[in-house]
């Protein structure tokens, strides 16, 4: 219940945060909403020496359109994303995903950047940013760089963030043309985390056939991944029930699904297939 001692700094700017982080590369951790880190600290699974709280940097929480992109600041809370009218209009997958995260208290405080940087294999956001082909802007002591969501998730709780780097922004190409999106999730009855979570972005041709599908999957593997087999199988089809069902079978291609007390590997694979099909169907139904 009680974390080990640490020092705490609440920088006013991101630059300050970066330099504080650089001051103790081994012992410092970034604190955003704290909803992944603090529970781990309370169980003493994490014992950082220094917490650099970026939650007070007001300029890091935003959702805005810029050119053909949607820009989301790293400390934007799940609730801000859930309740954004802008996103509801132009990229409903984000609010859809947000509202399935944890519970209202968690959504009020937890942040998208914190969740992505933590890279919990059962977190919801990784699936959504993969489906949206997001780019993540990472800022380090020397430079800023941009990494594709696909390249960001490296392994269990491991991202491409290098020591000293902070996730600053999530950039998403504004969906255009005819498209439909959906997030479907089987929540764990105790933790609420995704046993499987499927985020689908479906681009349609004028005739209603599938132009391109982009699908993120969480909960199934050690890290979230793009379901490329499903995407390929859907592409060019009329997205009828049969095509959806056939494509969905590819959700675990090349993946040995996780196994735990609640769901065996075999059953998790089944859940992934079923939720994949339902997510594609829901995305299709929402397509304008």
């Amino acid at each position: 219940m009680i974390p080990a001692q640490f020092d705490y700094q609440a920088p006013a700017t991101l630059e300050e945060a970066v330099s504080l982080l650089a001051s103790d590369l081994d012992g410092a951790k970034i604190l955003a909403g704290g909803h992944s880190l603090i529970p781990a600290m309370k169980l003493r699974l994490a014992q950082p020496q220094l917490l650099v709280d970026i939650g007070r940097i007001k300029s890091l929480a935003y959702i805005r359109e810029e050119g053909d992109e949607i820009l989301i600041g790293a400390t934007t809370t799940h609730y801000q994303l859930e309740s954004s009218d802008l996103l509801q209009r132009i990229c409903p997958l984000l609010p859809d995903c947000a509202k399935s995260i944890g519970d209202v208290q968690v959504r009020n405080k937890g942040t998208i950047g914190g969740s992505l940087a933590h890279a919990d294999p059962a977190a919801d956001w990784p699936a959504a940013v993969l489906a949206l082909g997001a780019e993540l802007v990472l800022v380090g002591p020397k430079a800023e760089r941009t990494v594709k969501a696909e390249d960001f998730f490296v392994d269990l709780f491991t991202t491409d963030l290098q020591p000293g780097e902070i996730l600053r922004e999530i950039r998403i190409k504004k969906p255009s043309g005819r498209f439909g999106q959906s997030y479907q999730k089987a929540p764990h009855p105790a933790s609420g985390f995704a046993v499987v979570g499927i985020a689908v972005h479906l681009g349609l041709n004028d005739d209603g056939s599938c132009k391109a599908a982009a699908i993120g999957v969480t909960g199934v593997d050690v890290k979230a991944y793009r379901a490329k087999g499903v995407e390929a199988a859907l592409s060019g089809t009329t997205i009828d029930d049969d095509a959806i069902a056939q494509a969905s079978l590819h959700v675990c291609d090349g993946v040995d699904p996780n196994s735990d007390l609640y769901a065996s590997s075999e059953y998790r694979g089944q859940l992934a297939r079923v939720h994949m099909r339902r997510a594609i169907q829901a995305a299709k139904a929402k397509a304008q």
Partner: protein
Amino acid sequence: MTNNYVGKRVKRTEDPRLIRGLAHYVDDVALPGTLHVTFVRSIYAHAKITGIDTSAALSTPGVVAVYTGQDVAGKIGPVPCASALPELKVPDHRVLATDKVYFVGHPIAAIVATDRYAARDAVDLVMVDYEELPVVTDVEQAANGGPVIHEAFGDNIAYKLTSGEGDIDAAFTAADRTVKQRILHNRLAPIAMEPRGVLARYFPGEEELTIWSSTQIPHLMRTQVALMIGIPENKLRVITPEVGGGFGSKLNVYSEEALLGWIAMQLGKPVKWIETRRENMQATIHGRGQVGDIEVGFKNDGTLTGLRYSVFADLGAYHQLLTPAIPTLTGLMLSGAYKIPAIQMNITGCFTNKMATDAYRGAGRPEATYVVERALDLVAAELGVDPAEVRRKNFPSPDEFPFHTATGLDYDSGDYETALNKAQEIIGYAQLREEQKKARDEGRLIGIGVSTYVEICALGPSQAMPAGGWESATVRIEPTGKVTVLTGASPHGQGQETSFAQIVADELGVNINDVTVIHGDTGVVQYGIGTFGSRATAVGGTAVFVAVQKLKEKAQKIAAHMLKADASHILFEGGKYSLQAAAAASATGVSEPVVPVGQAPAGALPEPETDGKSNLTIQDIALAAHLAKDLPPDTEPGLSATYFFEPKNFTFPFGTHIAVVEVDHETGDIKFLRYVAVDDCGRVINPMLVDGQVHGGIVQSIGQAMYEEVVYDEQGQLVTGTLMDYAVPRAKHIPNFELDRTETPSPVNPLGVKGVGEAGTIGATPAIVGAIVDALAPFGVRHLDMPVKPENVWRIINGN
């Protein structure tokens, strides 16, 4: 004023403090200078302790003391087990481990520090050297040659017991058919929302120790802890402030309670320990944890001839207060709501490297109801008849009560068929079965589960209880007319501050707001037994009721004296004593003041007045009784009565629960479509409270049936050690409950109440599992073990 609070939906008097955050649970009691205690607990399920180094912890700033098992050896007695079964093996259960640890979470050392943070930090600084030993977690392996836990006993079998009446072999010979089933009762964690907590303070001058503890049994705990730490019982005061749920998990005497008391005496400072949820999962008792084989013999027409149940009970590493007794309660209730000529129960109670099992809401009876109801479903399936009809066929009729069972009980009263009929009517049973058929034809999997349960409540006659089964009450009217009730029951959410006040206000004809119910303080309340086993209203409420009658008898005598009439001519109605009409006509002198009016000093209590009228309020009587200027001869001053009620029998509430579920072909997800419960808990004091008890119980059943399971791995590590892994039902998991009642009064007590605290956890699991199994009947399934998780369902549907 004529009241009838009893039977009405009266809002709770407890609530204003609770909804404003102004109530006090143990951790809310703040004493200046309090030191905080944390525990070093075993990380192994079975190991020798080869060394404990406390030096680093002791040299940490803020740490005041560290106590190990060696430090308290010979100073604190063993953790008590109140269960006395023949040839029961009772391990020496020390408050801190000495040479060996037997389960993950076994306390090894207690750290005392100036604040909670320092106390927590020091836990990581106590170095314990272990030598791991072979572990046994599976109960059958424990019974059959697994590693021996308590070496002195030679094996892991704590006791074997056979019970039941009737010629069991003849019963099975007489049967046309039999069904058998192996049935698992998943180990559960009670998860009271308030974890346990203890605060202890010693007054060296007065030599008095006060312990605040989150317990269901303040008096029993006082007795046991006094014996453990060697303080005279009357120098120990136990206070249970607000208790945040118990469900049996606080019907116990724990190491920490004695240890904190002892440490407070050593240090002369208040000491506090508040359990974390992880500790709560590891080291507060678990419930259930049985695996057994049920066998039922029956005739082709569905008549039951005999029942045999052989069970392995997973007791854990040690006995807590009632550990070995819980499976014996299962044996008592194996007749269910049915006429079964012969019943046999064989228990093998086994030690395992886990936390002890003990009473968890229902305590042994849910296991009985579950196996009997599952067996009835199997009989119905075997015969191809409706499960409700097999039940109906075997009910005793209302005129067969008191009904003697082959488990040796005499059920007090019952009308099982009426409850079944009512539940079937509410849910539209016949039509529902039709719809189910239609749905099946359309490929939908809908299932209907029926449970016609009976439970044993109001524990109980002292003959049958380990430490007295009575309950106590004092009712007194203060000089100002306010009514104080002291109950030996120890409610912790059940609402008896309200329901007991309803009883008393009706009996005395006073406003309910003038009645205060006090409980949970051994310094104030006469000895009592506590709240568990659905006993508080049936036994404790009866004690209150009878105490009021005694008080009224005395008041009547005083009233008669004041009204200068014979007591037999005095009528008490609506809170007023008056002369009966006939007597009033012939009485003389009533116009004169009965009590001499003296010169009252300023600020003194007002004089009681008869006003020259022919009636007196109970408050007038109370004042006169306290002033005691003119009482009838041989009458004690004051207006107070105490009663200890000893029940002659248990009570046997019953009812019918019907669950309707639909399962998802593809995911195995289980969704409730309907849930109807018709419960009969005898006379109802407050229907709102009864509904709340039923709802809560059913949801704990939903937990057991579908979500909850304490899992240890083969090394004895607790896999479900936090609420991340152990799924307690949430609002989204419940159906909309449709409740109704029948009301068959109990003849066992004058209130006619039976008890309702555990009905939901007893009646509901078989209905829920029955419904799921019924939904899967097209796949040839007749039984599934709990918790039935979506994956289990999916596997059935997919033939694996």
